[in-house]
């Protein structure tokens, strides 16, 4: 079965780049442009993995993560945070809240992000 990945990212160009890459790698991709939209999509689409940006208009990524983890049906969906926030505090907070991995956008290429996804979904 093809893994369905939800990409929650507000920057249009970044969202396109990562989605294209994922689609090319054979994943099914759904997109969300902000936190609220993200939560709705998680519930509706039941993705196999979520790529989550943190700084989002309205509900931010941390809140999306908290909402997912408090819902027993969504809590088990793996989440990879993909953010520009690179401070230790943010990374620790994200991992403590239950994210499976934390990637800093500027330090990873889409190719490396795909490798992380593969490692996690095996």
């Amino acid at each position, binding site marked *: 079965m093809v893994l369905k990945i939800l990409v929650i990212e507000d*920057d249009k*160009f*970044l969202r396109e*780049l*990562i989605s*294209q*890459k994922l689609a*090319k790698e054979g994943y099914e991709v759904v997109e969300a442009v902000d936190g609220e939209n993200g939560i709705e999509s998680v519930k509706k689409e039941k993705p196999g993995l979520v790529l989550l940006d943190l700084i989002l208009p309205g509900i931010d990524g941390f809140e999306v993560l908290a909402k997912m983890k408090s819902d027993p049906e969504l809590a088990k969906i793996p989440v990879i945070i993909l953010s*520009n926030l*690179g401070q*230790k*505090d943010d990374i620790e907070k994200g991992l403590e809240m239950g994210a499976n991995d934390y990637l800093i*956008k*500027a*330090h990873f*290429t*889409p*190719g490396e992000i795909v490798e992380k996804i593969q490692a996690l979904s095996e």
Partner: protein
Amino acid sequence: MFFDKKKDSTLGETFDIKITNYLTDGLLVFDKNNKIILFNPRAEMFFEVVEANVLGKSILELSRYEKLSPLVSLLGGGIKPIEKQELDIKGNLIIEITSVPITRNREKINTLVIVHDVTKEKLSDKMKSDFVTLAAHQLRTPTSAIKWSLESLIKEEHGEITDDQRDIIQKAYNTNDKVIELVRDLLDVAQIEEGKYLNKLTFASLEDLIKSILNSRTGEITKKKLHVEFERTDIPKLMLDIEKMDMAVGNILDNALRYTKEGGKVVIRLESNNKEVELQVQDNGVGIPQSEQWRVFSKFFRGSNVMKMETEGTGLGLYISKNIIEAHGGRIWFESDVKRGTTFFIVLPVKERFGEFLNKEFY
């Protein structure tokens, strides 16, 4: 007059009391028994206490006044000498405290405590570093987008490219990575300047930290055929913010590796006298020209001889290193000669009390 000339008051003879009424700094004067004998109008304003209420009181008695109690905690009952220490006495007032003992025949006869208002400076510092932080953060999304799109071109995800095109795109990719590095350094600098820099301190081995840095640089060391020696004796563990110390020591080691020519030698020495640990990083590289040595630790410094060698480096590395070392209570300095190379020295304190505490209480 507050200074009675009949008493043994040395200040009274030479000191015109009225001058202190017009100072823009707060001034507190204590006698040899640490009792207050002067509290000028500006001090009254800062601490919201009138002079008449505090004259003749000892420093410890002053802690009864809410606004004065942080000052008392800072100075202590013996009024220790202090140079320009910052103190936040209420939300919107930040002051800088200097306390100077006045001695005659090696005996303390008075203590001056000078209170300088630095609220405006602190506010503008904060605005500046907030701006840098904001600007740097805003640069992160576009630099990520550039990195990601160039990678997809290099990987030929949008069709084949010629070697010539690949070369150009690869150069653009590397240049963009330098911008990413610069943005990261700027964020570190902004954090340093806000004074909220060190995170969790843990008991760690500096030796292990150096080994792991060297391990991660093996590629470069082999490529440049450098001889790297690591001489060490048994040294105590230190209280470190490992991530930051890794950056501080990494910067020093990287400079040694980078600015030493092919086949050159880098010697790392680690020793301790139980109170302090000293790390030396000695290279026989290009050195720092004498005329530029005074600004080595300033922001954006790059040696003129080095700029001709290669263009990499943001000029922020040593500034960041110095701040990290000093935040750990340590010192950093160097000796350099363009003919012989450079040696950097880092000294870090061994937190004995903590060590003793661990040994005695737990083992």
